């Protein structure tokens, strides 16, 4: 049996279709996923992301423990700020990509993908040994509700006293909504401005209700995981299990910038990642592909060069709801990774021409 979200009955009342995702039963869509996608690009979407894992590290050596456990330099993150980072194994393979919030000098919250939450919690516990820090997996008790889209500031602004002008992208602040304590963060996975609200699961239905009311005049629609996937794909954001896995390093995924070698002490995966950084070997890199027509390259389809040889594999693909043409991400050799390179994708036996492009496919107007 999959675990229901604390908002399950709310979703049922809204007529959601559910999907099993990493052991959780989560809303896939409420009505049309294209309408939900569009709402996020033009107004706002309301997401239940309670399946995400939240692991807190508290103690005088919390910063040092995370510097050792993760590839980023979390000791350099100021309280109130957040950082996108990764946790790797000793071979440099990505165990998960993470958002880490520094809540106080001695307190962090690590947000992990649902599918990896248990792995990440176990790895953090193991790696924190010997440091003065306590690791507390709060995934089961915390709910996460996101408001994403251009009208999200107006919506959140109407339900909190938090100074949103002062709340930068990748920052968080303890706040309250309807008298309920929440952690309000300006983060997301859609390519739009937006907020994420961490709250005790028991209080989540009330927060959802207040946000729904506040969103009525701002075009807010409840939005499911189906559109979350097409939104993140347009924004060129990797999805663990598709673009990221333990068989790739952050460098392979074009995200070598998250690895900070210049930090005191070692960290798990350091030696392997140094070798990968310095290696002069032919490796595959993650690129964007765009096509024409309506047929989308999908996960697992072969990417083929001009000679008809398979050079890579599509990791994610869809007919872009915003752009109207097919988009995909794929790992291909460096030699054919330059933007403008003509390749093709085998779409169920038919060769469809695609062009390599720079990621992201979609970027919001600043």
């Amino acid at each position: 049996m999959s675990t229901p979200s604390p908002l399950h009955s709310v979703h049922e009342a809204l007529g959601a279709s559910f999907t099993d995702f990493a052991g959780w039963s989560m809303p896939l869509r409420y009505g049309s996923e294209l309408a939900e996608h569009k709402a996020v690009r033009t107004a706002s979407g309301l997401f239940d992301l309670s399946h995400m894992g939240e692991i807190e590290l508290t103690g005088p050596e919390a910063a040092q423990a995370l510097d050792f456990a993760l590839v980023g330099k979390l000791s350099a993150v100021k309280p109130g700020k957040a950082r996108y980072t990764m946790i790797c194994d000793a071979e440099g393979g990505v165990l998960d990509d993470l958002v880490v919030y520094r809540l106080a000098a001695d307190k962090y919250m690590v947000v992990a993908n649902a599918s990896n939450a248990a792995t990440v919690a176990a790895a953090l516990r193991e790696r924190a040994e010997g440091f003065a820090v306590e690791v507390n997996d709060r995934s089961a008790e915390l709910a996460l509700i996101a408001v994403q889209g251009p009208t999200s500031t107006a919506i959140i602004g109407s339900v909190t006293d938090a100074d949103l002008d002062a709340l930068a992208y990748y920052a968080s602040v303890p706040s309250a909504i309807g008298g309920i304590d929440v952690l309000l963060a300006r983060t997301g996975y859609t390519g739009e401005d937006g907020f994420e609200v961490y709250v005790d699961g028991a209080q989540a239905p009330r927060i959802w209700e207040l946000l729904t009311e506040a969103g009525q005049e701002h075009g807010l629609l409840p939005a499911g995981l189906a559109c979350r996937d097409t939104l993140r794909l347009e924004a060129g954001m990797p999805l663990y299990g598709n673009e990221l896995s333990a068989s790739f390093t952050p460098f392979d995924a074009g995200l070598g910038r998250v690895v900070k070698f210049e930090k005191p002490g070692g960290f798990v995966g350091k030696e392997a990642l140094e070798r990968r950084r310095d290696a002069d070997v032919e490796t595959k890199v993650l690129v964007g592909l765009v096509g024409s027509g309506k047929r989308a390259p999908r996960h697992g389809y072969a990417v083929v060069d001009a000679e008809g040889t398979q050079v890579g594999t599509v990791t994610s693909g869809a007919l872009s709801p915003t752009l109207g043409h097919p988009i995909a991400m794929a790992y291909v050799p460096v030699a054919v990774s330059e933007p403008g390179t003509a390749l093709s994708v085998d779409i169920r036996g038919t060769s469809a021409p695609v062009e390599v492009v720079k990621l992201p496919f979609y970027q919001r107007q600043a």
Partner: protein
Amino acid sequence: MSNPENLGYTTDHEWVDLADPAAATVGVTKYAADALGDVVYVQLPEVGATLTTGEACGEIESTKSVSDLFAPADGVVVEINEAVVDTPELVNTDPFGDGWLFRVRVDGEPELLDAAAYAEHTKED
């Protein structure tokens, strides 16, 4: 959900209107349309194509997935719904009406489920 009583159904979630066997209309059920999500592309057989029951004869693609269309009967395609090619969301908005896919001149007697049997089939799914 209500599946029209006058139609025949397949276990692949297609419906057939056999009122005119020389031009039997084929579509996908509301159950299928709901499961697919927003349909963004349909590839239909060509007019004149010969169909064999159970064989793939086209594709129906949503944002999240792609499924084969299977011939619900033996016969020859006599007409395709150009409107649904241009506006694939008709499959979602009116699966039993304007979202029909193609028409077939049916050979013989296709084996189809009635509405009650199809409702039973989707319950088990």
